[in-house]
């Protein structure tokens, strides 16, 4: 029996970039009948296996409008991970993302895993944020980076897998003793440089 670990994950990003679409896609695919449904799409949960553990993501969506910005700390408080979403067709949303990165660095939980998701990559023809640019930025802050398409279910699963892998296992000894786990586990990204 694997232990279930509850992980609070906070979703940040401009309104309309597809925060909740990504999570709805993540939760709806492979629908798990064991999981009691939540009352609405602002809070969703999904459990995925990771190594010796089961990670139950408790996903907290936030309102992206400026007026709700001041409430954000209540949402990211206690989060194990934050997914900051921008829209690759909206440069503004990428700027907003950077504000969130900054705020998290300054006020977020220590050791919070930050993932940057460039959504709507199915709309490459009207792209405003080059992937390279965003990727470099992500590397500069040692964040996970991935471009997704909630609409086409591209990279959604992967996004959360990457997060799972960066969550340190509760019992490191168990991990050591489990060879297969060790082998399949990807080393944590080594992005430490700042440029």
């Amino acid at each position, binding site marked *: 029996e694997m232990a279930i670990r509850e992980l609070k994950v906070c979703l940040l990003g401009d309104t309309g970039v597809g925060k909740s679409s990504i999570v*709805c896609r993540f939760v709806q695919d492979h629908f798990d009948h064991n999981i009691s449904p939540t009352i609405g799409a602002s809070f969703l949960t999904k459990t995925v296996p990771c190594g010796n553990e089961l990670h139950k993501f408790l996903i907290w969506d936030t309102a992206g409008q400026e007026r709700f910005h001041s409430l954000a700390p209540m949402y990211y408080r206690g989060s194990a991970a934050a997914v900051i979403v921008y829209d690759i067709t909206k440069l503004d949303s990428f700027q907003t993302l*950077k504000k969130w990165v900054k705020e998290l660095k300054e006020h977020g939980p220590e050791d919070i895993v930050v993932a940057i998701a460039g959504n709507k990559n199915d709309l490459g023809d009207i792209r405003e944020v080059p992937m390279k640019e965003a990727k*470099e930025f992500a590397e500069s802050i040692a964040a996970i980076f991935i471009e997704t398409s909630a609409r086409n279910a591209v990279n959604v699963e992967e996004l959360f897998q990457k997060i799972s892998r960066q969550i340190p296992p509760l019992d490191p000894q168990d991990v050591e003793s489990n060879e297969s786990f060790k082998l399949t586990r990807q080393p944590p990204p080594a992005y430490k440089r700042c440029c």
Partner: protein
Amino acid sequence: MAAGTLDPPRPLDRSGSFFKLVDTFALEIGELKQEMVQTIQPSAQHPEMEVLPGLEGEVSGLYLQSHTCGGTAGARDSGYDSLRRRMSVLDRLMQTHPVWLLLSLSDEEASRILLQRPPGMFLVRKSSKLQRKVLSLRVDDVSGPSVCDFPVKESQYTFSLEGSGISFADLFRLVAFYCISRDVLPFTLKLSEAIAGARTRSELEEVAQLGAGFWDSDLCYRKRSPVSPVRSPPPKPSQEGQPVPPQKEAPPTLRTRAPSQLECGQSSGALCFVNPLFLQLHHPEGGSTSTPKPEPSTTAPERLPAHNPPNRAGGKSRPPPPPRPPPPRRPVPPQKQRSMPETVSWDHRLEQLPPQNRRGPMGSKISSPSFSPPKKSSAPIPVPPPRVKKQLSMSDADGLRCQIAMDDKTIEKALSRRRTATQLAESPSPPGVPAAVRDGQRLSDMSISTSSSDSLDFPHGFSLPGPSPPSGGDVRATSSEDEEDNEDDEEEEDYGVSVESDQEVNVPLPFKSKRRHVGGTFVLPRALKGHFRKVSGVFNSFMTPERRAVRRIAELSRDKSSYFGCLVRDYVSFLQENRGCHTSGLDLLQTLRQFMTQMKSYLRQSSELDPPIESLIPEDQIDRVLEKAMHKCVLKPLKGVVEMALRDFQLSSGAWQQLKENLALAKAKQPHELGADGALPPDPVAIEKIRHKFHNMRKMYSPEKKVALLLRVCKLIYTIMEDNSGRKYGADDFLPMLTYVLAQCDMPQLDLEIQYMMELLDPSLLHGEGGYYLTSAYGAMSLIKNFQEEQAARVLSSETRNTLHQWHRRRTAQRITPSVDDFQNYLRVALQEVDNGCTAKTLMVRPYSTTEEVCMLCAQKFKVPDPENHALFLLIEETSQQLAPDTYPQKIKAEIHSRPQPQPFHFVYRRVPNLNLCIPADQKNGNCPPD
């Protein structure tokens, strides 16, 4: 009132003759046989509707019987006396848990103890190796004696042995079952002689007192030969021996089958839970008659009953293990008549007794205080410590069930006899305790009665509160009863939902049976209602282990002789008298939360809870159950005080006024003005509905229950927003809508409600769904509270935003390479080489980094061999200027950004122009920025 209502049934009385009784036995036996054949056919097909009428019949039957009994009292006593002595396996286990339930016992110690004992002996403990509970069983394997650990699986609501499909509501039931049926074990568990053979509670108590020391004591090795005859029920009819051989055998059978079975039997899933009757049947002293045909071996007096000696079991060839829990069965009319009524009839009888007699039973109850502290009461309850244990065992619901199942006549006999004689002696009732108090106690005792002889009185006692005590304590009795009722109601109110869900999720059996009973009460004529309330109190004993545990803790909190009770009482009264001592509402709530958390950990560590909560509640549920208990014993009495205190703070700080004003402003706004423009807003009717829910929320004291209501409100909002479109709305749409709804509800009181939940909710729940929507409500409320300020700020920020927006647009329009240089800590710098053109890098540059530092960084990043010949330049449009070493590039960047019409600009790291290589732009802007 009791008497009046009870009387009418009398006419129905079936003459109560002895022959009638014999007939009944015959009938019972016949039914039993039938039952053996067609086992499980019951519950599912009998909707409650059908059952209820049956119950009603039962009830009327009761009254009849009580009267009958009166006449034949002497005659029946004989059989009864032996019954009295019988204690079910479950009772014995519950009373002696300090002996065999040794959670902290080490592997070594367990082996040491068990290896000296015969096979079949067992302990329950927590294995440090497996980090879970195990049943350690002494076995004989090929290599000789050894100890085998069978892990206990704890699901969300039940206990079972690993590998077995049978689960139990608590550990006692589990162990009791395995005393009778081996299931996945090599053989049945065996109780030590001192436990299996004990004739009285005090004997068991003696054993229990020894705790783990029992295993090394003389008692453990002692044989009880002298007593053994008594142990086997049939052989020794106690006093007025009525020589009716068949009867002797019969009574147990009857008992088993009877009413109690109705109770358990009607519910479904019999296999899941072991019917206590079954246990009783197989219990050492007498009950081995579970099978219709008497089995010689089992019936033999000297034998340890139910469980065959392990050896014999040796394995599979052992005689068919006792049937699993009796199949749920439909009540058969005759049976019905017996069971429930009894309680009521007893009531009736009691009334007829002279006061002193009455005192007997009550006294005994009183003597077992800890579990049944008088509700609310202030009257001191003498609590002889030893008795406490007894009470625990009494708390067993199933025991009660068995009790009820007994032939009512017999019971009544016993009761009356006891009243006059034994009782007083056995349980000294404190003279000072007013009758009313005793009544109250009786009430609470109801939930804990056992099937032991002593406890025979208890179930009846339950119904006692109704009849007026001699001293005109009637009113008081009634009121205490009412309080009890209220409490139950509130509990229902507070926890009803979760109980409900419990039922769905897991253990269908016990809950359903409980429900049915309650249902049955509703069928009763109004006149009986009062009584039935009490009866339903009795049925509290059928509550889930969770509710039992909560109730026990609540009772403990009122027990002044317990440390826990003192702590709780002191804190509660302190806060009641000094609510002003806190600096703010927040401070008060946080202190309160801290107190509850501390009490929870105290309860987990102390041994005041008896039996240990681990034996009732699966590990992963303990904290949740403790939390509920805290709500009940701490928050419930303090709700009013806390509300007043919070309100005082709110008023005195001016927050209330500000809130009301802002709320009025916000309420005047249209949905889109609050950002709720993505979906359909609730109409006034829906708003009214939501307000209603919020009003209900205010009545609750449990933060969890309040949150549950909040979730319902949120769910309703979602439903309206979705409007059957199937669209899913995230926080971008939901939070503005929630803000709109809260503004429309116009309930400033909600602010305190939210604060109450936010601070008092179990911290472990704050990350879940309840925590999420609570946070959202809190956020929405704080926006409303600061509506004016927020609006003012928004004007500013939207202006800023517009500026930024324009700037971005222009940049985008110019197709300038997107960059990240506007982000505060990053600076994008290009290396311009004469022959190679430009390469750009984003550097981490703090606001107070100087140009000199940035130049060093650039030299490093760009791997420039001759940094001394390079410098940082700012290019704006066509102009370029070299930055002085002590300037701050980030500040310069910020300054340019803040210009009304910022122009595109670049930081360039490049070679300082020689005299020869002057770039025109450089010359134009040759001046360095002022130092």
